[in-house]
């Protein structure tokens, strides 16, 4: 009965974790040297992601998650009320 809720939850979590992986392990480590050829102000881009950008994205990701889950919780609650 709550299969739908759980599936949507898993979908949200996997998309957000993919971004999490991309900004830290991707831009901050694996692609970091490549990104270093671009420069914003005094920062090489790869260096910026490793020491600044990844942290900002982490904060953003959690707040997107909070927003999406609150919406999902509400939808789930409404559905339950309709059934009963």
């Amino acid at each position, binding site marked *: 009965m709550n299969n739908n809720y759980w599936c949507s939850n898993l979908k949200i979590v996997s998309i*957000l974790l993919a971004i999490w992986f991309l900004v830290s392990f991707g831009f901050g480590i694996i692609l970091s040297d490549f990104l270093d050829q671009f420069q914003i102000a005094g920062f090489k881009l790869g*260096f910026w992601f*490793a020491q600044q950008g990844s942290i900002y994205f*982490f904060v953003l990701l959690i707040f997107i998650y909070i927003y999406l889950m609150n919406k999902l919780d509400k939808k789930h609650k409404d559905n339950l009320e309709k059934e009963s």
Partner: protein
Amino acid sequence: MDTQLLTYIFVGVSFALYISIAIWSRASSTNEFYIAGKGVHPVANGMATAADWMSAASFISMAGLIAFLGKDGSVYLMGWTGGYVLLALLLAPYLRKFGQYTVPDFIGTRYYSNAARLVAVICLIFVSFTYVAGQMRGVGIVFSRFLEVDINLGVIIGMCIVFFYAVLGGMKGITYTQVAQYCVLIFAYLVPAIFISILMTGNPIPQLGFGDTLVNSDVFLLDKLDEVTTELGFNAYTENTKSNIDIFCITAALMFGTAGLPHVIVRFFTVPKVSDARKSAGYALIFIAILYSTAPAVSAFARMNFIDSVQEVQYKEAPSWFKNWENIGLIAWKDKNNDELIQYSSGNALEGVKPNFEDGRGISGERLVKNNADLTSTNEVYIDRDIMVLANPEIAKLPGWVIALVAAGALAAALSTAAGLLLVISASISHDLLKKTFMPQITEKQELFYARCSAAVAIFIAGLFGIYPPGFVAQVVAFAFGLAAATIFPALLLGIFYKRLNKEGAIAGMLSGLVVTSTYIINYKFININMNSADNWFLGISPEGFGFIGMIINFIVALFVSYFFSKPPDDVYHMIDKIREP
């Protein structure tokens, strides 16, 4: 007023504040003692979590480490923040929904076995004590440098304060004290950073400042730093020296380790609702990110300032902070070419790296060391990386009250983390070991009494670690994270997301993660220390990053073993269904 007096006032006032909060928020039941009666507002909980998380290591050591590691230091920045994403998305809401007191509680119930609970308790106590030892050393350093009291007396004062509010207040007292401690520590961290950023780049925001140009020139600070560091024979500041695979694994081990640290997870048990657990994680990360995004800026400023103020300076003319830190043994200078000038470059100044001081002074007035000069390099300066943040305001010649503030902030960071850890240790002893395993007949009142006793004993042991610091503190930090990543995190994750995992699989997984990771770390850190280099490592992965491999092994073993045994009983299935519901 002189700096010394200001420091006494700042530290005294902050301690008085912590104690009055503790008296105001005493705990009267086990519920309040373990999880603050589940009544903590998410913002307050976020601040408390941040203070709990940011230890003496984050406040004192991290920026210093990054200052000397350059881009390699990113592993700490990403590793110690990224774990919160995992916590918020994968663990916190479900564990809050489960609604018990401790992490071993969840593992014991989910895997319907006291053996699993015991394995979790052992990992937890080991991880927590490792951490506490480091905090007490931080307290000792601050007391001896800024208040000029004996390190031992400093540790004892720290112990008394923690004892007072942890034993009396339990989680409730600790949480509200930590909110105050967060405010003190973040203020103390930001003020000098902003000052130095303005002095060096004219930009008042440190996060932008270290990407800005230096005052009165159009050269970017980081470009200048790259140039200076390469000139002195170091690696360029903004380039990696470690291999990508090693950086990847260390970052991963720190992230998954963070998400598996019991004293962090337990914070999410204290909020009123499941949705509050998610919010708490978000607020906690914001509060943490404020310090963590400032840290790399502080590092770059400190490295630059340090080189500027000592390079080619006559020892007699050296700034007073240089001599002050030399006096307590964290800086040493050996005049290799007898020119009375300080030369700083790559390589070790002394044979055996750490200075071994003897009585007496050299020609320039420097402290004599027993070590021979390391003639493979021209570097003459030994500097302990831990002092950079504490010395930074002095190096940048900031006013005395800023220096006093930093001392109070460092103490807040160390004490808040120590208290949080001690609580986790005492809860796991009184609740998991006594109430749930060996003495199930005790009443709530007796349990609370045992909780307070074990907190007191834990504080006593932690104090001993501070007074007689074991030489292995730095080495075992890798251990703490590696073990949390390789044992606790997989057990929690699979427990929530994979219903079919039975107790045989979980226990086999935790034990194999534990054995593989500790064997690897003990081998390179304690037995074959001289083999500890990239050529000998498995796939070039250092002991610091091996927890990640341990975690993968845990997953594989758990799933494989689980396949051969019967599936978990029905009530476990129901329990998992329930925690998955919002």
